[in-house]
């Protein structure tokens, strides 16, 4: 990825019932968005733990996005 300028690492924690499906639908509809997002599927955003968010930052994520 060198030479491509700033390539942020963005983690998205998505609820499997809504946001994850929405991301799938975005695919079905071929809606283009930034390729820097990595989605991690959760059972429910209720399962999000501050630990996950902190861990992601600790490991070098530039941004964390929780959707559900």
């Amino acid at each position, binding site marked *: 990825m060198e030479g491509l300028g700033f390539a942020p690492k963005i983690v998205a924690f998505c609820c499997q019932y809504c946001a994850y499906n929405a991301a799938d639908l975005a695919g079905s*509809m071929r809606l283009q968005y930034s390729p820097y997002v990595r989605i991690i599927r959760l059972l429910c955003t209720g399962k999000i733990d501050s630990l996950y968010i902190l861990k992601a930052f600790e490991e070098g994520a530039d941004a964390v996005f929780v959707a559900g």
Partner: protein
Amino acid sequence: MSSKGNAGNGDVGVSRKVGAVMVVGGGIGAMQASLDLANAGFKVYLVERTPSIGGRMAQLDKTFPTNDCSMCTISPKLVECGKHLNIDLITYSEVQSIEGTAGNFTAKVLCKAKSVDYSKCTGCGLCQEKCPTKVDSEFEAGIGKRKAIYVPYPQAVPNKPVIDREHCMKFTKNKCGVCQKKCPTGAINYEDQDKIIELKVGAIILAPGYDPVDPKLRPEYGFGRYKNVVTSLQYERLLSASGPTQGHIQRPSDQKAPHKIAWIQCVGSRDAQCGNEYCSSVCCMYATKEAIMTAEHEKGVACSIFFNDIRAFGKGFERYYIGAEKDSGVKYIRGIVSTVREMQRTKNLLARYVSDDGEIKEEEFQLVILSVGLRPSKGSKELAELAGIKLDSHGYALTSTFRPNETTRAGVFALGAFLAPMDIPETVMTASSAAAAAAELVSEERGSLVAQKEYPSERDIMGQKPRVGVFVCRCGTNIARVVDVQKVVEYAKTLPHVEFATESLFTCSTDSQKTISKAIEEHNLNRVIVAACTPATHEPLFQDTLKEAGLNKFLFEMANIRNQCSWVHEDPVMATEKSKDLVRMAVARALKLEPIKQLQSPVTAKALVIGGGLSGMTAALSLARQGFESYLVERSPKLGGYLNRLQYTLEGDNTQEWLKKLVGEVEKEKRIKVFTDAEVTEFSGHVGNFHAAVKTANKTEKVDAGAVIVATGAQEYQPTEYLYGKSPNVLTQLELEEKIAKEPEALRNANTVVMIQCVGSRDDEHMYCSRVCCGQAVKNALRLKELNPAAKIFVLHRDIRTYASKELAYKKAREKGVLFLRYNPEHKPEVAQTNGKLSVRAQDVSIGAIIDIKPDIVVLSAGIKPHETNPTLGSLLKVPLDRDGFYLEAHLKLRPLDFSSEGIFLCGLAHSPKYIEESVAQARGAASRAASLLSKDFLTVGGVISVVNPEKCVACLTCVRVCPYGVPAFKDEEGAVYIEPASCQGCGICAGACPNKAIEVQHYKDRQVVAKCKVLCEVSKT
């Protein structure tokens, strides 16, 4: 499948019934009925006319009154129907004939040539993309295009195309053939022929659904002539994020965002001219929803709804309607639009209408939406003819009040909008009810035709080092066009513990499953990763392959490199890098996965039915006919509940006769144990295994049940207003009804009668409509007119909400001279009494005058209020109440009969106010929901659920407070919280909230989630 629930008639030599059911139609109703039956041990053939299931609901953007996304809620059901082992989806097919009798039918079904071999097709979509022929899309209601080879919509089930031979150039001109050339699996077959198959079934359920009324029947609104006049269904597609404008509201003439929009109600409803005299029941609410969604989409859009009466009669509708006006700024204009004209230059529209005060007005709008009514779907008349059932004068299936799903032919049932215009929850309830009716008929053949899959025993992987296999899918060109699949495979091979990696054209094909199985065996794999599409649709398939290969299904992980990568990124380098990242993350998680043992929890094949009114008795009887025993607990000394006070229906049934018959049947039924003067005082356990104590006058009995049905009814509101209780001549509608039935002579001299609507409904304390009072007033007014044709009857109302065919009775009452005068809630009628004589003063809004009436009697349409026991019983069962105090179901749209706590169901007035036929349908529906549970010997529990480590639990009870299902319970003996595996829904909220990390969700343990974060920023080296 067990022998449970086989009613067994014991007749030897009588030809056996068939344990299969044909469901005709593929909408939400047909799907629900199919799922209920298939889950209760019956084989289901679902015959759908179009290429996919989903029906009208799939076309809708959002649903009222929760504004849930329609597709998001229907999608899991689509998938469940699609993969159910005992539901055969027979799409693109039509029934041709039905022979035989109840229990033993033979149906001939024409399967139209799809021109695509589904055993080869993988649904990659390349054919659709390359097809050069564009056709108006039925799914987009004519405002979007599809191809000649097409899947109706992206989430359709089956997700495989058909060729529309009327438009395909190969068939019309013998040209093209592109799809065949491009298909990577050779699935296109132009020589495919129509064929006729024969189905042997015991019962038939008809669910052909509805079509919108043709708006051209009202030419004065200019549909088809003016571009900016659209139907409400077209507008749903305009609002939908997956629609032709991707959810941007654009008017057709110039694709600009309209700032002023009008809805015109009752287009093709309540209209004798176009042949539909009935009310379509759903339009007021969908228009309200569309207006709310519009206001949400774009601030500052002015939405006006022109209406006759706002019919917000369903659960939660009144609050929704009030919210639309107050919070979303929707303007409701009472008035009929006479004409719509287009303005030449701007293409804006001029609506002319008579306002509430009688003035003729004109107003300009940029977009006009016609709230088109519902009519039985095209082809339902022919379907009825070949099924040999009668229709009513408007083309709906003819049924009766107490048997709302049963058609005129035994063994043939109907549901949903084929019965009457109705919304989604009503459809789902009647669907479960139709399923119960079918199951009652063929219950002795339960389990006789269903398949069950056998798997080899699971390999023990304890102590083994992880050996990971990675399968990267090209998905035809869907993935491979953007992602360098070969590079991803090579990269995967460099990852720790990856023993095997390969690519395939379609990982989901049958061949590929064999490849995966073989690789598991040859390389002794104990973790499998598929990098392909989405787990939402494909995870179950691959997990099944693991099970077939003797691996625990939880040792599987997917990397979504199609929907969330190749389809959304154009840059091949970036997309390939992202795919590598996703595979690396999947491998990291896979290393942490553990096999999960699922347990079998036995089911007690009995039900506890609480409430012995119409609903409770109907539910218990239906269960008995399906072969299940129940305990029926009634609080009062006598069965019958609210029905004890009803004398006759609007349709003319004698309710007391029916009640007597019903009580007789219940008392005779060996499978029902009745407790009267009884209460449930203790309750514990979980789905499949509940324990309760039933207290009667002299003893307390312990009962065990697998399922519970709450049918505790409701109560009549006791008015404190309008001199009720202070004058003997002020009655409630129920009291009047009793009087009409028992002492009609006393009413022959009632020359002037005033009825007042919305007493204890639609006010600050009761923010809901009691639904039945308008029909009740019309019913009693008509009876009074029969007793004394000269009687003057005034009905003082706010809106008359006689929905569906009840509208015809309202019309009849007006024809008979009953006067309907509308009052404003700010100026309620005043009732006074001087020297024993009553007088009523009311302000009639439409003529703007004050009217003084000297009635002989005043009748109050007292609403229905929640039963006083709801709070106590609700907390005993741990089930919630809604804001008005009625019981609250798991989901207002798609789970109207289930509580969120598994194994507990609800029906009748306990759910919300409703008519008799609706209570019967709900009760039978609740019996169906319970039966699909009770028919199982065991429930598979475990899997993705929360588990408490008692060593770490400090009993702070945080989990008890946060669990939306009320599952965690403090166990004294352990000093810790326990989560019952059978009840846990696996949302993981408790695990997230537990401050001491004492709770873990299996398969989503912290280390399994964090593993993905950990490898996120490693740079891939290739």
